[in-house]
């Protein structure tokens, strides 16, 4: 694992963006890593574009400024492409992961991000098929794990069970895990 990985999440209020960031943080903690998870400090309204951030490191993290140049950007809502500047500040060799039915080449065209790596996955489609709802945070975690190689899918599944086990039905937990696994399998790179 690299010394410090900085991640920015884009989504809309109500899509579980902050939860995804926290879930990733807890996964990191379970793996003995250090982390920070923090939202953009603005009002959070249902449907409005929001951002959240995660830092991961094998060593204690003391930096407390906002993230300007993320290593990874995850876009949970396809309608944000072309609406908010999702690649702003993304490192040249950074990774962009988008929930969309577009191909990576099409995403490159729309965003103008011509370096680094671009991954796409139709997480909304997967979420609706598996969970009956367009809540894309867990499939996007699967996509994140595959795109960055930072976490093992099995490890993430276990973490998901521990995290969701207390909050939702067993049936929904399993649906989330299927969505996570499918996203990791169906992801495209280009």
């Amino acid at each position, binding site marked *: 694992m690299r010394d410090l990985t900085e991640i920015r999440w884009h989504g809309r209020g109500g899509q579980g963006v902050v939860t995804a960031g926290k879930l990733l943080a*807890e996964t990191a*903690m379970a793996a003995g890593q250090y982390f920070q*998870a*923090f939202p953009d400090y603005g009002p959070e309204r249902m449907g409005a574009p929001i951002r959240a951030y995660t830092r991961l490191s094998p060593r204690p993290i003391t930096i*407390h*400024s906002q993230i300007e140049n993320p290593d990874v950007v995850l876009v949970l809502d396809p309608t944000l492409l072309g609406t908010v500047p999702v690649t702003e500040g993304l490192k040249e060799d950074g990774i962009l992961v988008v929930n969309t039915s577009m191909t990576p080449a099409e995403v490159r065209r729309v965003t103008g991000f011509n370096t680094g790596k671009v991954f796409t996955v139709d997480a909304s489609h997967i979420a609706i098929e598996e969970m009956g709802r367009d809540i894309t945070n867990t499939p996007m975690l699967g996509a994140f794990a595959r795109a960055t190689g930072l976490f093992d899918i099995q490890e993430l599944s276990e973490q998901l069970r521990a995290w969701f086990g207390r909050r939702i039905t067993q049936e929904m937990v399993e649906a989330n895990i299927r969505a996570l696994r499918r996203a990791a399998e169906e992801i495209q790179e280009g």
Partner: protein
Amino acid sequence: MSRFEALTGDNAVAMAMRQVNPDVVAAYPITPQTETVEFFAEYVADGLVNTEFICVESEHSAMSACVGASAAGARVMTATSSQGLALMWEIVYIAASNRCPIVMSLVNRALSAPINIHCDHSDIMGMRDSGWIVLFSENAQEAYDNIIQAVRIGEHPDVLLPVVVCQDGFVTSHGMERVEVFDDEAVKEFVGTYKPRYPLLDIEHPKTLGALDFYDYYYEHKRQQVQAMENATGVILAVAEEFNRKFNRNYGLFETYCLDDAEVAIVVANSTAGTAKVVVDRLRGEGLKVGLLKPRVFRPFPARELVEALKHLKAIAVMDRSISFGAMNNAGPLFLELVAALALHGVRVPIADYVFGLGGRDILPREIESVYRDLLRVAESGRVERLVTYLSVRE
């Protein structure tokens, strides 16, 4: 023994409060309050604490209830932020003057106007002469650790003063980090049982508190308050030593980072000190002798110890997240006090103030680096060209 948990700074403080299990918590849960009170209310509802939780009708009443409960002989805690603290003002002084060892968590946020709920240190700096002991925390872990130590510091018979534990609004209060949470038993053992010295509820020994006290004894009472503050420094160090031994920490009056052989250094409190450490590492990589001093104890102000730690430097920058309007050069409070301390001890190191981050304006590593670059120039010339800089402000 301990375990690691993913907690926000607010949650970490609530966790410490649960483990301390105070007799009374009085708070007013409205913006700008903090989640700490929400978390704690859940602990109360779940029966995890024996605390009498008093949901009052304003922050002024919250501190009033705390003073009443503390005078009665209870172990008392509360939490607030920004305007909430401002509304407590009158009673904040009374808490200290009545020698009530209340522990308060304060999430540092700006004061209105204009309306702003984001981080700066205007709230705490307004209460710096109120008679409270003031501790700063870089992150959620330190906030948790400081709350536990604060109980012992305030309740020490030679001190008997309220203690406020600060952390940065949103930056650490709402950010989630890895926090080492000690076993409940270990915390319980550390804080011990509170034995109030003069509880009003001890009706066998009737006494009065906060009564009229004119030119006959008021002055003497104030003098005793000074003595309590003087005693506090030693108590803070003794409590820290015990805490460090038990929980494997390294608390003192302040933390130094690469300071011993440094030629220039920044003095900055709370979360920005963490960001500055990253900058120090980077500049040290270039062979530049830069260092950092992070104050932990602001009241009582450890002037002699700070001067001792800083006197070898060729240039010092203080970074203030508030302004003392109308004070000398409109500088920040931390700078003003450090300038006085250096002058008093006859140390003539060039020193400059950098006001930053008001109202939650982010502070980036490159901005902190620019301060170090300024300092290196000052070290070379021996001259401070601008006493107070308002970092990254549009003028």
